[in-house]
C-alpha cells in the first residue's frame, strides 16, 4: 500500500472513530436528560453498544492497515 493511500485510510478510520465517540456521547447526554427509567437505561445500553461495536470494527480495520 502506498504511503498516501495508507494516510487516507488512517484519516478515514480516525474520522469514523470520532463519529462513534460523538454518537456515544450524544446518547449519554440524552440519557442524562431523561426523567424516567427504563428509557435512561436503554439509551445508556445503546451508547455502550455503539462504542463497543465501533471499537471492534475500528480495531479490525487498524489490524489490516498495520499488516
Amino acid at each position, binding site marked *: 500500500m502506498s504511503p498516501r493511500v495508507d494516510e487516507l485510510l488512517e484519516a478515514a478510520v480516525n474520522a469514523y472513530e470520532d463519529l462513534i465517540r460523538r454518537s456515544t456521547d450524544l446518547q449519554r447526554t440524552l440519557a442524562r436528560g431523561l426523567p424516567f427509567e427504563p428509557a435512561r*437505561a436503554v439509551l445508556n445500553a445503546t451508547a455502550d453498544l455503539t*462504542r463497543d461495536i465501533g471499537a471492534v470494527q475500528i480495531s479490525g480495520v487498524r489490524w489490516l492497515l*498495520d499488516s
Partner: protein
Amino acid sequence: MTALHWESTGAGDPVLMIMGLGLSGGAWWRTVPVLSRSLRVITFDNRGVGRSRARLHSYTTEAMADDAVSVLDAAGVERAHVYGFSLGGMVAQQLALRHPARVRSLVLGATHPGGPRAVRPDAEVIAFFRRRASMSAKAAAQASVPFNYGPRCRREHKDRIAEDIRRRLAHPFPEQAYRAQMVAAALHNCYRRLTRIEAPTLVLHGREDRVVPVANAEIIAERIPRAELRILEDAGHLYSTEEPDVDDEIARFFAGAA
C-alpha cells in the same frame, strides 16, 4: 448494569491502578502499601471480576478504559497518574488516548501495543491460556506458575508465589468474565496511535516474561514520545513479586511527573 467496586488508600496525588487478566484490584496488595506512603492509591475490580459486575459479557479495552474513568469520577478525581499492568496496561493505553486530560503520567507494566505488530508468546503459553478457562481456579493458579514467574523467582521465592496464589484465590472470577477479558485483549490495537500519547510514560517489563514477550515493551517505548524503558533482568511477567523494589521506583517516577 455495570457496577464497579473500588477502593482508595492513602493521601496525596491520586494514582489509578488497573489490574490484568482475571485479577481483582486486591492483586495490587504488594504495591499499594508502597505507593500509598506518598500517594492516594485508587484500585478497582475490572468489570466481571472480583466484586464488580457487568451487564454484558462482551468487553473491549475501550469499554474498560471508560470504566476506569467512571472510577475516577466516583472518586472525585479530575486527573491522575495511571498504572496499568498486563491487560490493565492495554486499558491504560486506551485511557491515555480516549481521555488524555485525565492522565497525568503513565506506567505501563508487562503489556503490549496490540495489532499484528505485537509480539506473541510462544505456542506453549498460548495453549495454556486456552486451557486455563476450563480449569478450576486453584489448578489454574498452580499451573500458571512457570509462565507468570521467572526461573530465579521460582527457585528462590516459593513463599512469595504461594502468598500471591493464596490472595488471588480469595477473589475467583467467572469463566465468562475471563473469556470476555481474553477477547478484549485479543481485539486490543493501539500500535498506530501510541505516538499520540503525550503523558510522561514509564514502560516496565521483565526480561524473562513469557506471557507478554519483552520485545513489546521496546515497541511501546519507541512509539510513545515521552517514554522511558526499564527492563527488569531475571524477572518474569509478575515482576513486582520478584522485584518488590520496583514499586519504590514507580513512586519516584510519579513524584517526578507531578
